[in-house]
């Protein structure tokens, strides 16, 4: 007879604790303050007058980038401290004393953290999108695609941060996530030069820019074709699977 807690109960339990951590820590409020500063800037710009449609598009791009960056950074810090902090504070042990599978615990933490990031991103994006005047044409379908890929990007980054935090010290995990999030594309670009084999190998470097369509959207480019979107979704899903698998493997084998 399986004496383990049902998955749903485990996920709800962990989700609740992650949610409490999210709203109790200052990270979220820093993001909200950044949003407030942006809104004040937009408000001032609206009063002064936005001098050209190109400037309006620039502000929209800046706002959407800000929403994306804030949500991702928040997620890195939130995800990377889940296991190390709980181990340091010894709050993980009462949790493990319950009939919970270790792999379920990793999955629950990953999902809960990701959900927090997705909620924050959705909130920021909505506020930015509503507040900035749209002075040029943009493709609504691309906005939807951009949101979908951002969700995948957040799921991927949280799985990466959790996996790294189980292999490395927390600070290093945060640093590595930051390097890949901000510089993965440039690293790929540097490595992929000249030889096809280098291009092939560079594809293994996590490149979050592949899932960011913000500039494409504000550039007024058409929505992606279905097969291209599927390829990007596939890329995100495979990367997520890799890091979730690595995190589960690391935690199952970890001596506590």
């Amino acid at each position: 007879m399986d004496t383990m807690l049902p998955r749903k109960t485990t996920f709800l339990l962990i989700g609740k604790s992650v949610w409490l951590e999210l709203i109790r820590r200052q990270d979220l409020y820093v993001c909200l303050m950044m949003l407030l500063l942006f809104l004040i800037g937009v408000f001032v710009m609206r009063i002064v007058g936005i001098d050209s449609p190109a400037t309006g598009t620039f502000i929209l791009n800046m706002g959407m980038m800000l929403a994306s960056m804030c949500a991702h950074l928040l997620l890195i810090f939130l995800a990377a401290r889940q296991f190390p902090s709980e181990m340091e504070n010894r709050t993980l042990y009462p949790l493990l004393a319950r009939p919970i599978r270790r792999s379920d615990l990793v999955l629950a933490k990953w999902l809960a953290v990701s959900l927090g990031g997705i909620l924050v991103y959705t909130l920021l994006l909505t506020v930015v999108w509503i507040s900035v005047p749209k002075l040029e044409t943009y493709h609504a379908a691309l906005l939807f695609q951009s949101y979908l890929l951002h969700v995948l990007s957040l799921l991927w980054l949280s799985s990466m941060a959790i996996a790294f935090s189980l292999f490395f010290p927390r600070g290093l995990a945060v640093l590595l996530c930051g390097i890949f999030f901000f510089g993965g594309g440039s690293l790929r670009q540097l490595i992929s030069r000249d030889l096809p084999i280098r291009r092939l190998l560079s594809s293994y470097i996590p490149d979050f820019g592949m899932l960011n369509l913000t500039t494409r959207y504000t550039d007024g480019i058409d929505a992606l074709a279905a097969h291209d979107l599927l390829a990007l979704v596939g890329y995100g899903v495979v990367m997520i699977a890799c890091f979730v698998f690595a995190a589960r493997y690391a935690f199952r084998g970890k001596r506590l």
Partner: protein
Amino acid sequence: MNNHANKLAITILLIVLTVVLIPVFALRMDPREYEGGRSRDAVARSRRNASSIAVLFGELRTSMSDMMFIKTERYLHSGVAYRPHHDEQLLSVEEMGEEVDHHQAEVGHDHHAHDHSHSHDHHHADDHHHTHEHHGHAGTPTLIPPRDEDYRGFIGRLHRRVKPWRDPDKAHLHTDGTELLPWFRVMTVTDPHYVMGYTLGSWWIARYDRDMALNFIEEGIRNNPNAFQIRMARGFILWRIFREELTDMELLGQVKTDFRDAARLGIAQRPDPQYGPPEEQPGWSLFQEQDLWSACQMRVILEREFGDPERARMLAAEYLQIFPDNEVLAGILHAEE
């Protein structure tokens, strides 16, 4: 035991699948690679950078590559931050070369590199801190205001003391461009589709090391196969090399190919004039128009001087339909007749 073996098999299968699938998806397409786009339009970019929000933030620009472009401008102005006056962004490829030559002549470097060793000698011997006054840009406001326009009093004075600053009414102090070369490398790594980084960067690099400049521009063509201005830049650089000896016919062939490709690509991208002047239509600037004009003209001249004059005449007639006001093309057409 059996259960364990199954788990192991599934794990290995998943790893193999992942290793195979990542390149399949990652190399399938890159959503950042697309033609056009407002952020890459030189005119829209210049307009944004001169907008009130850019002035408000001072250092803020619309992209990382733009910010690095600002760095190159700072280096050339001895570190002094001037308000956006990015004429360089709006130069045609040919003008960029002239501007670079002009700038270097001002600071006392009016020669080109011939080989790598020469460029090293040049680099170490005398380049670094030559400065020269340039009166052409005097009057451009600085980001840190002068004393009579600064309400901050002591703070403003301190700001002017601790940061590189120069009275905006005085002539700009221009420095040698050696130190800005790495910025072109960084700006094109950050944004491989920043065409101006490749065109302007190649002119600068070519002054010190032509092979390096040609490799740089080759990379630009690989990353932007449809950017006709990068092919033009390579054509002009190779043309300069060819002109020194006028013997390397293989090189001449490459020059002709570059201008032919540039003209072909440019004509294909040029907006339809029946909807108004092309340079006033989105995605096409006066400078692209000028570049295309130059590419067509160069192609015809090269064909006349080093190829088949009859073909040059045919090309002139063809390009005159696009640029009916081009007197050089008209001259070639009538002279051949």
